[in-house]
């Protein structure tokens, strides 16, 4: 899987893995497996990979999976409803506060 494009994909997947697993991602199985795959599919005199494009394509799909899941989760966290708001939050929305003690500000007789 020689080539600049393959390197880009490799780095992309590593970036996603680092994002998922933190700085210790180099100890993970996925990292080891990926590195092995990329190394064994390099085109060299001794080892000719079964299909350069095949392995690269699979890796691109994996990159797409990781990336899209992350971006989807970000949007989900940002926009997905968290159920009903509490009284304090509703009051805050219109610039009011809930009364804290009887007879205080906002207290109704």
């Amino acid at each position: 899987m020689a080539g600049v494009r393959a390197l880009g994909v490799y780095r992309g997947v590593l970036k996603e893995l680092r994002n998922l697993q933190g700085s210790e991602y180099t100890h993970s199985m996925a990292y080891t497996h990926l590195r092995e795959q990329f190394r064994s599919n390099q085109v060299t005199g001794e080892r000719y990979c079964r299909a350069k494009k095949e392995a690269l394509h699979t890796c691109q799909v994996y990159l797409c999976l990781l990336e899209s899941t992350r971006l989807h989760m970000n949007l989900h966290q940002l926009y997905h409803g968290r159920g009903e708001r509490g009284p304090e939050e509703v009051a805050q929305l219109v610039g009011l506060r809930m009364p804290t003690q009887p007879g205080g500000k906002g207290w109704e007789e």
Partner: protein
Amino acid sequence: MLPGLCRFHGLVSRALVPLAGRQVELKLLGCSANVQRARYATPATERKKFYRDVTISQGEGGLYEINLDRRKLKTPGGKLFTVPNEALAIAVATEWDAQKDTLKFYTMHLTTLCNTALDNPTQRDKDQIISAALKFLETDTVCYRVEEPPGLVELQKNEWDPVLEWIEKRYNVVIGSSYSIMGPQIPEETKDSFRQHLKSYNVWSLIGLEYVISQLKSVVLSLGLIDRHLTVEQAVLLSRLEEEYQIQHWGNVEWAHDYDMYELRARTAAGTLFVYLSSESATVKKKILQD
């Protein structure tokens, strides 16, 4: 009066607590298929994380298992979770490892696909899966063309025709496109040759393939993707061509359009990867050094 009231009360309480009611019924029936269906019908979307380390191990018959701390992962149907090869096991383990404080099952597409393949909740065999997948051919996204607006007509012609031509040449079939609401008349020979082709896949790959087809709503695009003619991004773009055209006109809404697109991409990529990983049988041949 009193029995009537009791019956009414029973109805209301069952409507209010559908889960409890169903579980009681299940206990009475005691049928394993129903239990399985019920478990699938009421999925918990999130759960607290209950493990720290995820490892894989090779069990009986060379199948790979996932271990969460010391416990073995099981499917919702109660079977032991096993996958046929190491790469898939690693990908699934990475999904479990990637979960932070809560398990978000809706982000774990590969696990979901494996569960479906292992439990087979709809109890289908290979032929039924193939038929279900090929049903999408009759209403394939890329075969339906619009007559207006001219911009979209042009776009569909330019983007979809090359893929259609490619698949017709690759599988030596006739598909064609149509402007009518009835869709194109797809000859029986075409369906037969796709059926023959799909029979060469194993059940796991077919489940993945059907998943991709049902996501993209297109057999043509899915096969293009599986045959490595298209990338996931391209396939998803082609599948959402009209939406993309409308976005160009009316603007992009992040919480609807982008949200949908990333989800579709993630699901399609997961399905494709599932097909690749469950159908591949890698054999490594090393060249012997000659001095």
